[in-house]
């Protein structure tokens, strides 16, 4: 299976407004995705929300590629009820750049971004309450990073809070 | 008027009591008197594991292929075998199954090519100790022995 070019109104709209910031628009297994620069991500979400009626933010997640220069991929999935179409937007996160929070556009982004922060340590600028959500607040380390072992844990936290030497 | 009569003659109450009374019928009682009455579990129930022996020769069916151990998501099966110099086959020596971590997904029995490992209908596998849930080859061949209480 290979990717096929994605034509239609959405990629045209993205290219028209964001120009060179749109790096790639393709379909893979019939699912459209667009690769953008991180700076263009929030404008793209805003654009899709306002111009193309993408009114439902399905998910925000990240993927860790520790060997790459820009370590993380940030993935946004948006859906339009009126078009019945789902679009995936991806951007690489450079080490010195913080992605902007999508909360002003989609309220549902709040917890999703907190989870990405909790699991990967990606900080979102402008988030109203960027704290850990699933892990305890004092936990150190980001569990879904590739260099975090499957049985690894924050031993100091375990010792202080559970009173045992190790959780294993 | 009709409403008043109903209320006066306590018809609603009697109707409700009739529903309650109807359930006195023994056929409608669903409570099982465990342990004297055992529940009938389905044929495909995934319960305690068993290592099957050949019904006639009473030799183990296991060919020590290790496929169950590879299939297990929790890595809780350990198969120990030695290569038999005569038959050039692997003979089963030990077989350890850690029930305390088992989630009864059935992937090991799906993987078994000779139907040696099987999840049976036995469901009484509680133990007082964690160690008691680590079953060796003997326990797997004999199956669980729940304590029988008699009056």
């Amino acid at each position, binding site marked *: 299976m290979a990717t096929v070019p994605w034509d239609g109104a959405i990629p045209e709209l993205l290219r028209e407004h964001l120009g060179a910031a749109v790096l790639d628009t393709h379909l893979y*297994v019939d699912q459209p995705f667009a690769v953008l620069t991180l700076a263009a991500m929030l404008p793209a979400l805003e654009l899709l929300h306002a111009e193309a009626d993408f009114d439902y933010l399905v998910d925000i*997640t990240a*993927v860790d590629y520790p060997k790459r220069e820009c370590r993380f991929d940030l993935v946004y999935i948006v859906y339009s009820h009126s078009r019945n179409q789902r679009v995936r937007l991806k951007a690489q996160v450079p080490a010195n750049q913080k992605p902007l929070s999508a909360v002003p556009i*989609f309220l549902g982004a709040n917890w999703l971004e907190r989870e990405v922060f909790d699991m990967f340590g990606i900080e979102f600028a402008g988030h109203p309450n960027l704290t850990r959500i*699933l892990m305890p607040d004092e936990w150190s380390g980001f569990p879904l990073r590739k260099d975090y072992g499957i049985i690894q844990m924050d031993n100091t936290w375990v010792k202080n809070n559970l009173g045992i030497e190790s959780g294993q | 008027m009709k409403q008043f009569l109903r209320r006066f003659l306590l018809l609603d109450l009697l109707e409700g009591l009739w529903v309650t009374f109807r359930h006195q019928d023994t056929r409608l009682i669903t409570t099982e008197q465990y342990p004297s009455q055992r529940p009938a579990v*389905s044929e495909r129930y995934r319960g305690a594991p068993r290592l099957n022996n050949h019904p006639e020769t009473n030799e183990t069916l296991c060919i020590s292929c290790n496929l169950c151990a590879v299939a297990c998501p929790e890595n809780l099966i350990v198969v120990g075998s030695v290569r038999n110099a005569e038959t050039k086959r692997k003979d089963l020596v030990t077989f350890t199954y850690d029930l305390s971590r088992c989630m009864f*997904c059935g992937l090991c029995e799906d993987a078994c090519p000779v139907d040696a490992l099987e999840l049976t209908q036995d469901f009484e596998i509680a133990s007082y100790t964690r160690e008691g849930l680590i079953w060796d080859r003997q326990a797997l061949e004999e199956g669980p022995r729940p304590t029988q209480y008699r009056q």
Partner: protein
Amino acid sequence: MTTSPDANELVLNMGPQHPSTHGVLRIVLKLDGERVKSTECIIGYLHRGVEKIAENRTYVQFAPYVDRMDYLAAVSNGLGYCLAVEKLMNSVAPPRAQAVRVILTELNRIASHLLWLGTHALDIGAITPLFYTLREREEVLKIFENYCGARLTTHAFRIGGLQYELYEGFEQQVNAFCDQFPAKVDEYEELLGGNRIWRERLRGVGVLDAATCKRYGVTGPMLRAAGVPWDLRKAQPYSGYEQYEFEVPTRSSGDTLDRYFVRLDEMRQSVRIVRQAVANIPTGPIMAKIAKVIKPPVGEAYVSIEAPKGELGYFIVSDGSTHPYRLRVRPPSFVNLQALDHMAKGALVADVVAIIGTIDIVLGEVDR
């Protein structure tokens, strides 16, 4: 209980050990008298790191774990996962497998809604319905047990199709259930919906209109109760749902009472789908022709299904090996729970229990 500097404000901890938080949800309520000023959900008590586990298991090995997220809808979880991996491998389950998947998933929807109904009524103070709903749920669980050998964490489906062929008497058992079940739904409706206390207790509580639902990303019965007829089974049919005739029940006011009605109607529609599916189960193989060792090609896919609680999505990134490189679960409960703050603001403390119940959360899925 502590009082904060604002003398009128009372901070109250609800949970994690509270029977009506449906698990280990902790909510910090800020109260002004009986009114809720704000809520803060503290979750993660049941976090097991399912997404991390996925990266350390093969595709086949991970399948039993998905049952343990939304454990009341294990079959739906399994279906979503299998469809996602099949999408990555570009394979489709054979028609017979698809029909059986639809039957079991719809039965699971009924079972999930039944347990929701019983516990929701229990939270509000109606104790009897729980016994009735558990009685009917038992029939569904018996079908699951007969089919795949487990009642709760079923692991019923495999990537590419099914592991088990139908057992003898499956059709009869499912038909018998479908024959007697609609009358039971009417009974619940009479018992609860016909009760004025129930109606008045729920009307206007936890209102969430369609626009707010969309802003929060709320899906499932909550969105449909606000009047949006959006159901993934209709919008983007999977597993052969396009062959079946059914309606998407909606209501208009988006309050707790409407969500109750929507879920009852959904159970009726599920019975309708099951009837159609069981009447003509195609013959043929139950497993697609796929390699023994599952190695999807490099790429990524997002597949979602309409789980009983909303849109359940799986986003899988494959690097061509036997293990998923990254597996993300988009849990409906997690996203829906976010709307709690909006719904509870200004409500009475006693309504918070009703609002938690109406979201229909399973903490196993919220925390994963």
